[in-house]
């Protein structure tokens, strides 16, 4: 069979193509972006007519995927962990409606927050929604589990959550492919009210979901992904999930692993396998990437009458990404330490690129705000968040997608006038529009700077939904045309732009200033999207 060198993300994408998906939807977010990007670029996907769409946000992505599933076909929606917060409403309710065509939601967690605001563990969402969770330990298993996941989804009529973490998402290894399948035929649900979650129907659907739980656990026991392997030393039993398994094996390379080991890659937890392991040993060690999800379930409130070690008792760090060394240490294995230390090393934080349009936007904004007290600028998530660092020191918040506008509204309501919001074009389309509607509805004294670089830049230049329609969207929310400006953020326009900022900061109502200049590293991507737009116009 064909073998390809694939990132974990790409293995999931290739598997989705081979498993016969009809559509994949996503909003870009590290470390999940490369899944959808791969399908968009895949010749095979194009030939199969697969719809690979960037969406306005994660909620619309999951909803569209549910629609595909309703029509009897296979769909995938992908996001980073915090994206699942945005998509939580359709995700939770899709567990109640159930699936018709196979439905997989992929959430990529980012322990250690390499590119994120928190390190939340998506497995809690899976348990919350009462759906099966798949947590592959390597690239090959990620590929295999997508195939299995679609079958599982259709067998039980349930959405399936696949949870990966940064290290698997962005690590490349050889992956052997399976024979590709065609897409499903169009086939609506037998009961055309299955997806109508009126209370009377929702209550029945919830009963159905609850009644499936035993079967889900049986699958966890019998699918073959969860493995219980006996060991000669019964002093300790080990439960390990996902990628953490690799770190154990790394430490025991060329040695037999002495302890009984339960490897978990599928949930709900297989109770009987857990019990079998725990009964056979004196103490238990739980190793998992992310929160102590299994460890807490195992211990409960009252414990199991045997010591349980893991992240909660300090055997492993309470937070952050695991690695071979901290896992080795949990087994008492010490690693070689070099003697050198260099006290002169300094950090090198990420920064705006040379020539980035945001630099000119922040310089103009800073100058216009100089006459006011500081601390007025609520911002958002994107490259422009780097405006928090020197030399700009321009922004005072970054909480979640779209929060710049709504937080600035709240700050203005509290008396901080003028309040300023800085938000990117793609983030504005993701979750900024509704906040702007709120501001217009109450004529909030607020100045919103949309830094429009015509792309989703931080994640590598994906299509921005704002391209070609930003002004009409802003005006459509009811912003007065006299208080919407489009400026060109360049050195030579600095004085002119400062004046516009000053005028609008003084205005006691909603102002929107769109600072438009292309991202300098995504010029090629932007040009391609513009060409597509002009074709649509013709």
């Amino acid at each position: 069979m064909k073998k390809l060198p694939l990132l974990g993300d790409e293995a999931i994408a290739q598997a989705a193509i081979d498993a016969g998906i009809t559509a994949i939807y996503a909003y870009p977010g590290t470390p999940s972006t490369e899944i959808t990007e791969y399908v968009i670029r895949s010749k095979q996907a194009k030939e199969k007519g697969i719809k690979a769409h960037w969406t306005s946000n994660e909620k619309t992505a999951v909803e569209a995927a549910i629609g595909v599933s309703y029509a009897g076909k296979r769909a995938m929606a992908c996001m980073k962990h915090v994206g699942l917060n945005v998509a939580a409403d359709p995700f939770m309710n899709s567990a109640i409606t159930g699936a018709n065509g196979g439905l997989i939601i992929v959430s990529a967690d980012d322990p250690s927050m390499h590119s994120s605001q928190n390190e939340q563990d998506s497995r809690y969402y899976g348990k919350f929604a009462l759906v099966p969770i798949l947590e592959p330990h390597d690239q090959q298993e990620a590929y295999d589990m997508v195939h299995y996941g679609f079958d599982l989804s259709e067998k039980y009529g349930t959405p399936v959550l696949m949870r990966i973490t940064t290290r698997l998402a962005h690590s490349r290894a050889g992956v052997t492919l399976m024979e590709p399948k065609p897409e499903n035929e169009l086939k609506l649900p037998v009961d055309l009210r299955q997806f109508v979650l009126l209370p009377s129907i929702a209550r029945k659907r919830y009963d159905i979901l609850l009644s499936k739980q035993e079967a889900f656990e049986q699958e966890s026991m019998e699918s073959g992904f969860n493995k219980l392997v006996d060991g000669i030393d019964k002093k300790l039993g080990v439960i390990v999930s996902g990628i953490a398994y690799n770190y154990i094996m790394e430490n025991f390379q060329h040695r037999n692993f002495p302890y009984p080991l339960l490897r978990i890659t599928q949930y709900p937890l297989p109770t009987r396998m857990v019990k079998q392991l725990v009964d056979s040993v004196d103490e238990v060690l739980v190793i998992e990437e992310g929160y102590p999800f299994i460890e807490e379930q195992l211990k409960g409130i009252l414990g199991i009458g045997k010591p349980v070690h893991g992240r909660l008792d300090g055997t492993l760090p309470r937070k952050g990404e695991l690695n071979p060394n901290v896992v080795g240490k949990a087994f008492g294995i010490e690693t070689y330490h070099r003697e050198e230390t260099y006290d002169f090393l300094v950090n090198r934080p990420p920064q705006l690129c040379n020539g980035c349009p945001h630099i000119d936007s922040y310089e103009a904004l800073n100058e216009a705000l100089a006459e006011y007290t500081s601390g007025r600028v609520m911002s958002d998530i994107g490259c422009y968040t780097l405006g928090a660092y020197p030399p700009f020191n321009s922004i005072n918040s970054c909480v979640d997608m779209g929060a710049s506008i709504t937080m600035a509204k709240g700050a203005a309501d509290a008396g901080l006038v003028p309040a300023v919001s800085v938000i990117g074009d793609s983030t504005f389309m993701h979750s900024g529009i509704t906040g702007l509607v709120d501001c217009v509805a109450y004529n909030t004294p607020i100045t919103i700077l949309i830094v429009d670089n015509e792309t989703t830049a931080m994640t590598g230049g994906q299509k921005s939904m704002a391209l070609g329609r930003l002004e009409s969207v802003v005006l459509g929310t009811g912003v007065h045309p006299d208080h919407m400006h489009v400026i060109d953020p360049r050195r030579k326009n600095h004085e002119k732009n400062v004046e516009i900022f000053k005028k609008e900061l003084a205005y006691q109502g909603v102002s929107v200033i769109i600072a438009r200049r292309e991202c300098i590293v995504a010029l090629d991507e932007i040009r391609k999207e513009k060409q597509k737009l002009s074709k649509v116009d013709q």
Partner: protein
Amino acid sequence: MNTNGFFKRDIIIAGVGGQGIVSIASAIGYATLEAKLFFKQSEVHGMSQRGGEVQSHFRISNEPIHSDLIPMGSADLILSVEPMEALRYINYLSKDGIIISNKNPYQNIPNYPDLNKIWEAILSVPNSMIIDADEEARKLGSSKSANMILLGAAADRIGIAFSMLENAIKTLFARKGDRMVEINIAALRKGREIFLGK
């Protein structure tokens, strides 16, 4: 490290976001495929790519590889496009590991340390080497091929047949035309010559 037929090379490739360490990793990747060895290569995506510190863990073996991350204390080589970045990952280096680093700093921070201290620290790791890859690349007619000078210098340490690295460059730069392929192969060879002291 080559006992009982077991072969492994753990390589940290270091630099600053935007310096193109991915092209080095890709070249090693193609060579590994031709050599029919197992590999795992962990990359940095996302925010750090904007001028921040970035590294790639490249693992090669003739047996299946478990961890995507190189354990601390076990890297055979730190290959760095930037001198200070080479030192950032010193804890990963094994007892016999070496550093091969570019000479020239990427100064996008106001508090860049004393360069002489950095060079001295690199050279105090036995068998390590600092190369002015940018200057060597300029002499060959393409400043962009500095990365391939460094890869060439590391070739013997990586332990894959040199011809396979050359083939990798042919694959990697094929889209950019014959001249780019030639320049980058010349850079690869030059790097190896420098390492071997010719």
